[in-house]
């Protein structure tokens, strides 16, 4: 009955070509994990950076898990979207990273990608916006079918995550 506290924030994103960005995030765990408190998923506000390249969200993440096994360690999956001047949202990148497994604070950089699509789609995207999106969000972190994808790199999402572990030593897990 080990417990994991994930406390941190999604700091922001850099390297995206789009300007007004927001981020949908979620945390995925295996079957052995049980969320005691907190929200599994959320969405940040839209940030339009005035100065510099980085879009800051400083979105808090506060989760408390209980687990009966190590399998399915929580992983964060992120979708960065950009909102254009018409209020339309288009995908800027998918990304995922595991929640670190050692206690302490961690600075994570999560690179992102987005499906490229055919040249026609690319063309349409360049002019009209939009573009291909994943049908199922779980492809972001499961990776079973990703080999078919052509992707383009997006920017990087920066996260600062603090981790508290409890009772793992009781079950022979050193951390």
């Amino acid at each position, binding site marked *: *009955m080990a417990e994991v506290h994930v406390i941190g924030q999604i700091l922001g994103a850099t390297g995206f070509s789009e300007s007004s960005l927001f981020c949908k995030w979620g945390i995925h765990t295996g*079957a052995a994990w049980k969320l005691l*408190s907190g929200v599994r998923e959320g969405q940040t506000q839209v940030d339009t950076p005035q100065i510099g390249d980085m879009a800051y969200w400083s979105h808090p993440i506060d989760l*408390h898990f*209980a687990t*009966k096994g190590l399998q*399915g360690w929580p992983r964060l999956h992120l979708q960065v979207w950009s909102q254009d001047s018409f209020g339309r949202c288009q995908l800027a990148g998918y990304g995922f990273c595991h929640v670190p497994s050692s206690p302490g604070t961690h600075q994570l950089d999560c690179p992102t990608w987005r499906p490229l699509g055919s040249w026609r789609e690319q063309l349409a995207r360049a002019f009209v916006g939009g573009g291909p999106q994943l049908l199922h969000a779980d492809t972001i972190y499961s990776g079973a079918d990703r080999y078919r994808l052509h992707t383009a790199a997006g920017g990087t999402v920066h996260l600062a995550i603090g981790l508290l572990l409890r009772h793992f030593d009781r079950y022979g897990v050193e951390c």
Partner: protein
Amino acid sequence: MTTIPLRIGLKVCAFHSFEMSEAAYSSTEEIMDRHLFKDAEENRNITETLRGKVREKLKNAKISQGDKSSSQLLAETKSHQWSKTEVLLDEGLSFFILSGEEDSAVSRSAQQKSVSDSYFKPSAFGGSLQTAAEGQDEDFVEEVILMDLFEVKAAEYEDDQEQMKRQEAIVFVPSSSPVANQRKLPKGMMPRILEDEGFYIKKKPATYKKIRNKMENRLLSLQEASGKCWFEESGEIMSLPSPIRQSWNFRISMSKESLNPALKTIHRKFSHHPLFNQEQVLCARLLQLCESFQDRQKQGLSQLLYEKLKALTETTKLARNKPEISQFTRESLEDYYWQISDTKRLYHEEREKDHSLLHRVLQTWKQMKSLRQKQGFTSTPVKLQFHKIKMNTWDEQNQAGMLSGEENEETPFQNEDTWVGLPYIASDLEGMDMERIKPMTLVPQLSFTAELTNVSKCSLSEQKRRAKIQKLKYFIKIFYNDKQVSCTSVSPLQFDFKVMFQQIFNVQLLYWPETICLEVYEISKRTSLLVKLYLPLPNKTELKDKTDLEYTEFSSDKLARPMDGGVGSNVPFNLEGSENEKVCLLTSGKLSYSLSWALDENGIPLTPVSQSFRSAYCSVLRNVDARGVPGLPWPMNSQKLCDWADDIRIDPNDPEYSDITELIMYLRHKGQEIPKYFRLEQLQDEFNFVSEEEMKRSKRFQLLQLRNAGQLDLFLLQQMPLYDKEIPDIVFQEYESQAQKDMSISDVNSITAQRINSVNFLRKVRSLIMKRIIKVSKFNLSDIVADYEEIVSTSQLTDVICKFIEPRRKLKPQRKERRKVTAQTVSDGDIKILDTVHPFIEVSFQHTVYQTNTASGSHPCWNEEIKVDFISPGHDYGFSTLSKIKDNIHINVFDEVVIEKHEDHCLKSCSTHAYIQKNWLGSISFPFSALLQQSEISGTFQVNIPPILLGYTWSNTYVPPREDCSGQNPKECTFLNIFATIEPQISYITFNPKLDEFSDQIDVLQRAQIFTRNCKAMFPNRRVVTTVFNGEGMQVFVTRFIKALNPPQQLLDIFLHDSNATLDLIARFVSLIPFTTETLDENDGFDIWMTSECCISLAIGNKEEHAILLCNFFLYFGKKALVLLGTSVLEGHVAYVLTQETGESLLWNPSTGQCYKQFDPFCPLQSVDCLFNDRNVWFNIQQNNTPMAVHFDYSKESFWKQLLPKDFQWTKAQSVQPEEIVYCDTNKGMVEDLKSRMERALKCKMMEWRPKHPTRWNRQCTSVLRQILPKLEFYTGSFASFEDSELERLLQFYWVTGFPIQMPYTDVQSVIDAVYQTGVHSSEFPQTEFALAVYIHPYPNNILSVWVYLASLARYQWNRSRIRQAKRLRTVGTGKAYLEGRGPGEQQPLAWWRGQLAADIHQALRYKELKLPSYKGQSPQLSLRRYFADLIAIVSNRFTLCPSARHLAVYLLDLFMDRYDISIQQLHLVALSCLLLASKFEEKEDSVPKLEQLNSLGCMTNMNLVLTKQNLLHMELLLLETFQWNLCLPTAAHFIEYYLSEAVHETDLHDGWPMVCLEKTKLYMAKYADYFLEVSLQDYAFLNYAPSLVAAACVASSRIILRLSPTWPTRLHRLTAYSWDFLVQCIERLLVAHDNDVKEANKQRGQSASQSAQLGVFQTAQPSRPVHFQQPQYLHQTSMQYRHPVSEQPSRQQLVATTHPSSYTLQTCPTGFQTGVQGLGHMQTGVGMSLAIPVEVKPCLSVSYNRSYQINEHFPCITPCFERPPIVSSHPCCIPPPTRKNKASKQASNQKQEQKERKERKKERKEEKERKKEKERPFKTKQNHTRKSKSSASLPFLPLHHLFIHPDGIGAFAHL
């Protein structure tokens, strides 16, 4: 490829010598196809690929088979039917899998076959094909190729044949070909295969077939005779079972399946079904015939007869041939002949039957065949073969007459014909060749091998029929004792019209089953009962191991129309082939099942004992049953079972596992191997640290999750404990109890249950709708961003733009000063209640109570500020949390009443001696939410005053300030000025999120919304509601709620002609519907209103619903009624109903039912915001919106803004209200039940609230109140009329305060709370009695009006201590007094024991005596006590004071002495003051001794005491201070009179005889009681007893002395409430004292006797004394008859005679002369009498006071302390001043006395022993005794009387 199969065919024949009976050409294919068909469902995909190949191979094989002569009928096929298809399937499957593989695999399968070769298995077939092919290939090569190579040389050729023959001669090479069974077995014997018969044959060791064949051949060829013994019956070589034991072959522990009868339904098969086509009908018939034929064969009757015949003929033949040898006589021979003929006849008959049966079989078969040909398809797999068995010699060539199918079928028949035609006559017996008689039997052999025509090839109707069959499904319900216990799964009908269930059901039984019934249900389109079958109960011996199935046939006469080729059932139809035959068949079939008893773990059958048997062993059985395990483990988890079976590889043929194998087979068949779920992480479980359960158990996690879900109020903001152990379980208990609250409605009245239910229901509905609404109303930006402001108009925009031009805002804005408000002030009460009341106010909120000072007068003004602290749940003081507070603030008006603890003689200053009682006068309550909403409440409010306030009246003098204030009687209103606010002020946020439109009439709704928005913009604080949500969550226009609705008819009938009264009644009815506890929600804009019908039927509603309901009712009467929305001062948001009469507007408050005029200043309505009716909504746009200022003419647009303009065209939507409301009557019984429950609950609660005081219920008052209550419901006028005479009578004795409370019924708790609020229970006055009556008036639809009448009663005390408050009853205005207080002299306290209140007074006294100050007996001057007690006695006698005064005086003295040390001189003063106080307290004023009188007393001079007024008064004051002015101290004297009233009764026996004169006895009783009282007064030891006990003991002692029996009758017990045991100790003491007196008297008498020289008599009198000493022992005896030993009486009598004069000679008083004379007179009479008791009595009278002062000869004069003063008064100066010397001498005398007592006690003991001995004397003596006693009792009391009269003087003597 082509050549190989050829040989295969050949080899096949060689190997297996089997033959297809018909259609040999296609037989194998048929078989295969059949299997394929069956397999098709499951493994079509597997077969599909292999099929082609196999078919190819097989076809080739068939070609070869075509030209092969059929020779052998396989016996194995017989078993075909038996072996289930499953087996075949598996085998078939394995074959297909194997067929593509190598030889080794094939051979293995072949081995398998050979091992268990009883089945006809295609795999074996195929396998053998393969092996055959292989083996033959080599031969072929050898034959062909070698020959070609070596043909060149011909010379040395030796014929193979010859060579072989030569070799055979030398070498024996056993052939490896299999041996036919016939050779192995004895002739004519069929191979018997035990396994087929159900025996379990253990596995044999595996051997190669070839080797075995060789072995067999060798054995057979070696020695024909001995060889055969090596073979078993089955034709196999004998062999031991396989020695290899599989170690894992352990048994499943069957303990868990041990349940009572296991019903295993295997399958059911239809013999007729409506969906049978004609072929199937025929088939069924064929089957039936064959079956019967087989049955007959099994019986073997013909065979038996044949054998008999054979034996008979042989013997007769023998006899005839050798008549000389034969022992048979002629007769016997004849007999034989006769027998032969008879047997023959029988045999013939049997055969005839057989033949006819065969004939019919054949005929049917023919019909069937023709039908098959005709319709062009076959739908049954049936095939008939005839097997001819010749029973005579078995020759090789003609091995078995296999007449198969079409070719041969005619032949046997013809044969038969010729056969049958043979005449069998007895006469040509001899000529008969036995061979000929021997029947050549034809056995019809059914096989199910015919190929079913594929669906596609069938006709349309057949296709339809088959489709229908597929649709049909069946299931069986199992009934045990007519109760359904279980139900099978639904199984489809198979094509062979079988339904397989294959399920085992376990029924746990407690009793012997009566019936077990199966109901077969058919599911086609709908489920219908097909047939009901009763199963025979299984024998007790039929246990679980039983494997064989039983059959029951069933048929149902259900009519089924023939359709789609089906023949239907119960419908006649023509059968093909026999045109004239009309058949009508019923649906019928067989159900095979097995019903058996289970075994428990010990293998004991769990058969329940039958009924009669049961009763005896019931308990034993219960134990057995108790550990019965419910349910089998393995049917539950079939997967596990399969796994397990796979693991341990159980032997499928082992009968032990038969059930399991069957089940597994079935499960596999059904294909349940596929798991039901899909798991991503299969290995998760292996890696887990902990199990799921452990996770769930973790309290911390639970708590965390609950907190996250927001379901924990308690831990919401607290830190969570880190460890589980730190978490108390209570947390969950609270949560669970909260969760359970919805569920648990137990032990409540059904009406209450309904209430609870409806509240829950409403809450659920509301939350449901809320959810919907919340979901609909999207999250707005304005919800998050605080300063967000939507730009509505351009003006706003310009403002914003203008802002740029404007000067910038200051960086430091000035804060606005908020108006300071005081917390909560109650001020300037305009209370107009009563004149002399002392009202005060109590404010209670959240169970804390705050109280103002007590004001006085009916116009009190408190002007006080009360700060009420309160705690918000969760310590959150945000608006949202605060708005959830449902508590009400109660402001109660009380009157303070002071009740004196005792007398009102007591000075007024001693207020501490009073009880304060508060009487509830009225209350105002308002919800906290109202305060929250309005932030302050201020104004004058009418106090809710109960309709009757007992003990209070309305003052007439008070003139209300306004005459026209309201329609009500202005005099009966009380008003209270209140100002209340919350500090710090909490802002009330209101926001109405924009809603998405979704509802019926969107245009109207849009309009409504715009209207609302505009209204809000104009007057943001005014309420406007245009749309609400209805019960379905739809947004509805409010006007749709208004519709004329009928009120309950019952209400209309009450005031038929008084319309106003009816309206009032209806308003009242509406007000009685309980209210939902409303909370202020942030989303106040979403109102959910139920329809009026809902409101009525649920009996709950909110304010608006009430208003709508009332409005609808008013509309029904044709009134102009509108619903008014506004705010009320006290209630916050309210909805009123406005009715407009001519010229005036009336405002109805639906929550109270009250009606206000528009200009009623006390109307709580504060603002009028909005009106609506069924047509329109009006918003008040007048500047002043107080009701008084508002113009209610809503047609004026300048005042009222309309939602819908006049010319607005819209289709008026239908009302949401129903056409009519149907009311149901309230169940009277329920109401009664509720009433009694409520009363009980309230009484219990009252007692709970008074933990320190006893709560007494006055029954009389309660009954009066009960009578009053029902009248109150329909009151019209004043209540004064209700105070009926009974209550008046009650008021004479009690000071009654009371009031009725009326409220609608929601639940009992609310009633209890209301009662609690009134504070009736808080009365501290100990003697308060309570009365409580509940009345519930039922209105229709369970709407109840609850009346609770509460009253507290205080009894006016008997001893003139009055409740001062009684005076207050005189109201100022009328001057009418309910009760005139009794003046001090008005009523005599004397003789209270005769009055009606005697019992009560006694009780009061008893109560008081419990509170007497404790007496410790610690005074150093205890020795002087006796002297002062006597002094008091003397003085009180002198002034003829009553005994109670005397006792009180002594008691006061005792108490005083106990506390203070006083000089002896002072003690005299104290004693006299005590006497004075006591006399003042107890006596009439004129009998209180005057100072001069006291001073003039002779004894005073003796004491050198001069009393001064000042001294006395000081002393009195001192005393009073000491006693805290409480002189009401009961003494024994207070009780004695009461007890004496019952002390003697006619029924009492004196000495076992009825009393002669009751009056006299009473008199004596009184005297004796007085005597004992005085005795008790003299000794301080009696202070340890309660006065009442002493009094009771006095009575008891008197009775003992008077020899009244029973000594302590029950009536006295009841009266005094003391049982005998309590009294004994005290009585003993009294009697001892008495005895001492007697002794004293004796001594005196002795002295006198010595003077008169009568010593002898004295001595004789001695024995009498022990009697008294013995009394204590007597007391303990159960028989209370006090019987003196009669033998001593004469002597005593003498004693009497002697003592009397002597005692009186001692007296020096002048009356001595008279008494002497009397004594003489008495003596004269007394001598004649035979009573002895006076002896004891008389001395005590004189001695009692003589004893202490015996030295002083003057003292005897103290004796006349009894009543008559003359004795003392005549010797006023005879009391000598007590000196020390006196006392000392007295003490000395006391010591002497004690010594004497001791001595005498010793004597007593001796005498006691003697008496005991006496008692043991024979009966006779006793009789003498009794007789004597009778004679002595003839005139019992006379001497006694005389004796007593003595001191009293002549007056008493006159009685004689």
